[in-house]
C-alpha cells in the first residue's frame, strides 16, 4: 500500500547495524558515564534529604488520615472512647467533639471522619481502623448525598488513594512485596521516601501543611483568599465539579456506596456497637442545585437513608435545616463555626433521646 507502510526489512537491518555501531562507541566511555550517573543520584539524594527535613512522612495518602491514626493510637492506650463520629468533611466541620462532650454524659468522644470519605471508604476505615482502636459503644455515621453516589469519580479517587495507601497495608499487615520494598528503600533513601511530594509538590505541600489545608476546608480560595460566598469563581468551580458528584442513582438502591453503609452498620452491630445515622445539614436550594437532577436526586438519597435505617433497625436523625441561610455555612455543605456550634448542641440533645440515656 502506498499510503500506510513502512521500512523494509533491509532498512531495519541497516538501522540495527547503526544502533550496534553506536552502542559500541558508547561502551568505550562507560566508566565516566557511570561516575556521572552516580554523581547525579547522589546530588538528587542530597536534595531530597534537604527537602525531607521539613516534610511529614505520608503513609495514608492524606495528611488528615495520618493525623487521626496518630491521635487514635494515643487514645487507644487510654482505653478508647464511648462514642465516635465517622463520615466525610461535613462531619468534620459540623460536629464539634467538645460540644458533644459538654452536653452529654459520654465518656470520651472522638470525631474520626475523613474529608471526602464516601460509603465504601467509611466502611473500611471504621471496621478496620476506628473500631479496633477506639472500641466505641456508639458509632454515629454522618451522611451527605455525595457519599452514596456510585458514579462520582472523586469518590472513587479518594477511596483508591486510601485503600492503596502503604499506611493501611501496614496497619492491616497486608503489605505487598512492592510496599515492603518501598518501605525498605524508603528507610535508606530520602529520594524514595518523599517521592510522593516530588511527583506532585503543590498538592502534597498544600495537603500536609495544616494551615493551608484548614483554609481549604473552610472554603477559602487558594489564590484570592476570599471567603467562599464572596467568590464567584470558587462557587462556579464547585458547581462545575459537582455536576457528576452529587447524584444518587435511584435505580441502583442499594448501590455500592449505600450497600457499604448497610454492611458497616450490620458489622458494627454484630460487634455489639450501637449505631445512629445522621442526615447532615446542607445550605438549602444552592446545595440541591448541585445535583444533576436537582431535588429528585436528593429525594432518592433521602429515601435510601430511610430504607437503610428501616432495614438495619437503627435511628435516623434528620439534621437538615432547610431554613438555615448561608449565614450558617462556609460553603454549600460545610457549616461555619456558629452553625457547627448550633448543630452540635442540637445533635447532642437528639442523641440523648434516640439512645435513651
Amino acid at each position: 500500500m502506498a499510503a500506510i507502510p513502512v521500512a523494509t526489512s533491509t532498512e531495519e537491518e541497516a538501522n540495527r547495524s547503526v544502533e550496534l555501531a553506536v552502542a559500541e562507541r558508547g561502551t568505550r566511555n562507560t566508566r565516566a558515564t557511570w561516575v556521572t550517573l552516580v554523581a547525579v543520584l547522589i546530588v538528587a539524594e542530597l536534595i531530597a534529604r534537604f527537602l525531607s527535613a521539613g516534610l511529614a512522612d505520608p503513609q495514608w495518602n492524606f495528611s488528615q488520615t495520618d493525623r487521626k491514626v496518630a491521635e487514635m493510637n494515643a487514645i487507644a492506650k487510654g482505653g478508647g472512647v464511648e462514642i465516635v463520629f465517622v463520615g466525610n468533611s461535613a462531619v468534620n466541620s459540623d460536629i464539634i467533639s467538645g460540644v458533644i462532650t459538654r452536653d452529654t454524659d459520654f465518656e470520651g468522644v472522638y470525631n474520626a471522619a475523613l474529608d471526602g470519605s464516601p460509603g465504601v471508604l467509611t466502611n473500611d476505615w471504621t471496621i478496620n481502623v476506628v473500631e479496633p482502636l477506639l472500641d466505641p459503644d456508639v458509632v454515629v455515621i454522618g451522611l451527605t448525598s455525595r457519599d452514596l453516589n456510585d458514579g462520582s469519580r472523586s469518590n472513587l479517587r479518594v477511596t483508591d488513594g486510601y485503600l492503596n495507601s502503604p499506611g493501611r497495608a501496614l496497619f492491616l499487615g497486608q503489605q505487598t512485596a512492592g510496599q515492603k520494598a518501598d518501605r525498605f528503600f524508603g528507610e535508606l533513601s530520602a529520594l524514595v521516601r518523599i517521592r510522593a511530594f516530588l511527583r506532585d509538590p503543590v498538592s502534597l505541600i498544600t495537603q500536609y501543611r495544616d494551615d493551608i489545608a484548614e483554609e481549604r476546608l473552610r472554603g477559602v480560595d487558594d489564590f484570592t483568599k476570599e471567603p467562599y460566598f464572596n467568590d464567584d469563581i470558587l462557587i462556579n468551580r464547585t458547581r462545575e465539579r459537582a455536576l457528576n458528584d452529587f447524584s444518587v442513582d435511584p435505580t441502583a438502591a442499594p448501590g455500592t456506596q449505600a450497600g457499604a453503609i448497610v454492611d458497616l452498620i450490620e458489622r458494627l452491630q454484630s460487634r455489639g456497637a450501637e449505631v445512629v445515622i445522621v442526615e447532615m445539614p446542607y445550605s438549602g436550594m444552592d446545595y440541591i442545585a448541585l445535583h444533576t437532577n436537582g431535588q429528585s436526586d436528593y429525594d432518592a438519597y433521602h429515601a435510601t437513608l430511610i430504607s437503610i435505617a428501616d432495614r438495619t433497625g437503627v435511628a435516623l436523625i434528620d439534621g437538615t435545616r432547610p431554613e438555615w441561610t448561608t449565614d450558617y455555612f462556609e460553603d454549600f455543605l460545610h457549616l461555619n463555626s456558629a452553625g457547627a456550634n448550633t448543630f452540635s448542641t442540637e445533635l447532642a440533645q437528639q442523641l440523648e433521646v434516640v439512645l435513651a440515656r
Partner: protein
Amino acid sequence: MVFNSLQYALFLPLVFVLYWTVLRKHQNKLLLVASYVFYGSWDWRFLSLIWISTIADYTIARALARSDDDKIRRRLMLGSVGVNLGILGFFKYFNFFADSAADLLNSVGLETSPAFLGIILPVGISFYTFQTLGYTIDVYRRDLEPTDNLLDFAVYVAFFPQLVAGPIERAKRLLPQIEAQRSLPRQDDIFSGIFLILLGLFKKVVIADGIAGSVNEAFARAETAGWVMLLVGVYAFALQIYGDFSGYSNIARGTSRLLGIELMVNFEQPYLSRNITHFWRTWHISLSTWLRDYLYITLGGNRGGVNKTYRNLALTMLLGGLWHGASWNFVIWGGLHGVYLIAHRFMRHKAPKKATDPLVASDILPILATFHLVCLTWIFFRAETFGQAWSYLIGILSFRSGAPDFRAISLLLPLGLMMLAIDLTQRQLRNQTAILTWPPIRKGLAFGVMVVGIIVFSGAAQVPFIYFQF
C-alpha cells in the same frame, strides 16, 4: 505481569541468567515456559486460546505446504482465518455487535435487549492472532516455508517480550531467529538492550503515567470544562499514548535483545511527521505494515485505479480502527485517518520526502498541522462514548469558558519537552539508542535524570499499558 512491576524486575534477570547459563541448550523450551508463566500471571485460562491458535496454524501451515491443490489450500487458509478471527471476534466483538444489532432493531420498532455474555477480553489477543494469521497467509502465498518444529512455532506465537502488545512480528523475521542457535550477547548488545529498557521505562513511568491523571480529569469533565483545559487534555493524551506505547515497544525490544533476538522498530518519532502518510509510516509500524500486506494488498491495493485505491484505503483504516476495540469511536478514529490519507494522496503531486529524512525549518508548520489532525482523532480514541467525544470537541471549538488546569499545563510542558528532546535526538541520528553516542558526561547526566525520574514516579498508582486493552 507488566514490564514496570517488581515481578518483572525479578522475572527478567532470572530468565536472562538461566537462558545464558544452565539452560543454554534448552533456550527455546525456557522461552516457552517463561512466556506461558508471563502470560498466565494475568489469567492462566486464556493460555488455552494461545494453544488453540498455535496448534491450528502449525497444523494448517504444514498441510498447506504439502498440498498443491488450490481448492484445498484455499479451504485450509479460510480455516486458519476462521479459527483466528473466530476467537478474536467472539472475545472482542460479540458484545459490541450484539449491542449494535439490538440498537438497530429498537430503532425500527422491534423491542429487544442485547444478549450480553459477560465476556472477558484476554490480554494481547489482537496481537497474537494477527501474528499467527500472518504466518499462515505467508505460507499460503508461498512466501514462507512452514516450520516443522512445534516448539519453535509455539515460541514464535508466545514470545513474552512482544506477546501482549507487539510489535506484531513477521514469521520471516522472527522465526529464523528462534530456530537459530543464539550466541552469547556482546557487551554492546547488553548495554544497548538495557538502555532500551531504561528508555522505555522512562517514557512509560515518567512521561505517560505522569500525565495520565490530567488526561483523566480533562475527559471526565468533557461536558463542563473550559476549552483551554480540554485542549491541554488532548495534547496530554497524545503525549500519554505515545509515551505508553512506544515505551512498551522499547522495553520489548530491549528485553528481546538481551535474549539475542531482534524485534522490529515500532515507532520512529511519529509526531515529527510532515504529513499523515509519514505519520502512518512511523506510528505502530508493525500494525500498519501488517494491514498493508495482508488487508490492503488483498483488497487490491492501488492496482485498480484511483477510486478503488481510495476505497481500499478507507476500508483498511476502518478495519484498523475496529482492530483497536469494539466501539464506534474506534471506527470513527480509523475513518478519520482514512479520510486524511485519501485527502493527502489526492493532493500529493510529487514524490514526497521520506518519513525519516532530516528536518528543516520549513517542516515546522506541516509537522504542527499533522500533529493537530492526529490530535483531533485522539479525542474519539480516548473518549468512552461518542457523546463524550462530541462534547469534548464542541467544548474546544466553541471556546467554552472555564478555568485552565494549571497543574496539567505545568506537567505537560516539561514532559512534552523531554519527549521532544528524545525524539529529536533519535531523529537526528536515525537511531533509537542515539543517546549512547553522546559524550560520557552528557550521557551520564541523561541516564541520571532518567533513573531519578523513574525512582520518583515509580511509586505512583500503577497505570496499565493502554494497548493491553486491545
